[in-house]
């Protein structure tokens, strides 16, 4: 029973992590129709910024976390201006290779500057509560709560904020959006910044749980993709839900099957879903 609950917590945490990353990925795809293969590295950068803020700049965890997420704002703008902006109207191959190139660039840049080995990022939230015989780690609670808050904010943003509605509009029909007066460039920039922020939040909250290393992005991106695909490309809600499911699948596979093959199970699930329903679990089929 203890194991079950532990895995549940692990699964939910992993799910939240994947969900934060998948949400940003789905958002970028929905608004800009770009599959960002460098998205995992944005997550990694969030964690790296946290590490730098704590170890080199000496900030305590809380402020370091806030700082690292805040850094994703200008970074996102930079990423948009230098890369995304230039690959907007190109074919998907150009976009894919360009973002893959950015991924290679970022990973190796971090390796050269900070070194490849993993780093530890301390956090004051080390306490583990014991309630009714079940162990709950404080840091994991932070992850879950932050993720939930982030998603609620995101949902409200899309529903009620003008920029959010504009994002949905651009995602559905870019030309129509221009025609009604939406400035699609700004919306695109906002989408990139938003997905960087989401990735940054994931990095800042998850980093203390695992080691921070340059390759952490590539480890998680494939699962994030799986979640985005399962959820239906461009469907942010679908991506989030699928991510949680995959997180749980992974956690339980590790516990009950074998940790090495957990990834295989996750893929297996994704492929199974796609074979049965190629448009994804939540992908909607509209007439034209």
């Amino acid at each position, binding site marked *: 029973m203890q194991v079950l609950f532990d895995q549940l917590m692990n699964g939910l945490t992993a799910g939240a992590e994947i969900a934060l990353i998948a949400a940003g990925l789905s958002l970028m795809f929905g608004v800009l129709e770009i599959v960002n293969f460098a998205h995992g590295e944005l997550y990694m950068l969030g964690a790296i910024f946290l590490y730098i803020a704590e170890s080199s700049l000496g900030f305590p965890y809380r402020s370091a976390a806030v700082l690292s997420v805040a850094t994703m704002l200008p970074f996102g703008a930079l990423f948009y201006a230098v890369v995304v902006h230039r690959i907007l109207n190109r074919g998907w191959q150009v976009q894919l290779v360009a973002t893959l190139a950015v991924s290679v660039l970022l990973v190796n840049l971090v390796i050269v500057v900070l070194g490849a080995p993993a780093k530890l990022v301390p956090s004051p939230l080390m306490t583990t509560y014991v309630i009714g015989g079940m162990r709950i780690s404080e840091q994991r609670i932070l992850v879950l709560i932050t993720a939930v808050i982030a998603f609620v904010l995101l949902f409200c943003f899309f529903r009620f904020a003008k920029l959010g*509605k504009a994002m*949905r*509009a651009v995602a*559905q*029909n870019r030309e129509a959006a*221009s*025609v*009604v*007066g*939406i400035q699609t460039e700004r919306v695109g920039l906002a989408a990139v910044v938003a997905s960087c922020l989401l990735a940054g939040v994931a990095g800042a909250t998850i980093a203390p749980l695992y080691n921070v290393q340059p390759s952490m992005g590539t480890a998680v991106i494939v699962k994030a993709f799986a979640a985005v695909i399962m959820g239906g490309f461009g469907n942010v809600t679908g991506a989030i839900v699928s991510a949680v499911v995959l997180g749980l699948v992974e956690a339980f596979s590790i516990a009950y099957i074998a940790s090495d093959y957990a990834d295989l199970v996750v893929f297996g699930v994704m492929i199974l879903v796609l074979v049965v329903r190629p448009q994804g679990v939540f992908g909607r089929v509209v007439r034209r």
Partner: protein
Amino acid sequence: MAAELPALEVRGLRAGYGEVVVLRGVDLALQPGTITAVIGANGAGKSTLLRTIFGLLRATSGTIIFAGEDITHLGSHGRLGKGLVLVPQGRCNFPMMTVDENLQMGAFTRTDRGVRSDIERIYQEFELLAGRRRVLAGNLSGGEQQLLEMAMALMIKPKLILVDEPSLGLSPGMQQLVFGAITRLRDLGTTILMVEQNAVQALRIANRGIVIELGVVRHEGTGPSMLQNPEVRRAYLGLPA
């Protein structure tokens, strides 16, 4: 009526896509409260003309003057603000949003509170849409979507509407509906520049017609005179001279 400023004046407009030059020096002037029909063969530059006037495409040279103001260097966002709106060819709505939401999006640039009542007025004008308020735009038929797009354009109470092929894909009955709406708008004082493949229909309701060929204006005149012009008839109307 005293001589009014032309609603729209275009001089020497040139535009294209990359190295393909489509408009090669177009001149035209639209009087306020009139319908001008643009006809011509495919690829002649009709749609390009509208897109350039609206600002989706940047002109390489020439000027565009809207109600006396030079808007050549204004982006489409700015031109919308001046009361210039485009109803493009093909599907130009938000398929995953309902009809009502689409109309709200049509009013995106508005900051006043009259949006809701204007939407209700649209529903009165277009019964077809009233019955489909909650339907996702993507599930409407082609003609219904075309109507929706015209309605969306009306949400900003435009002074000049650029319409690209309003009858495309519509049955004759629907076409009558759409042309009727266009005529009513003209009678209310809106200026309309309309590209139409269905030349006969277009020239019947238009005050003036212009023929674009190879990127320049070839013929122009009043609607009726164009319908009678044998050269125009033969080449563009598919009718015996």
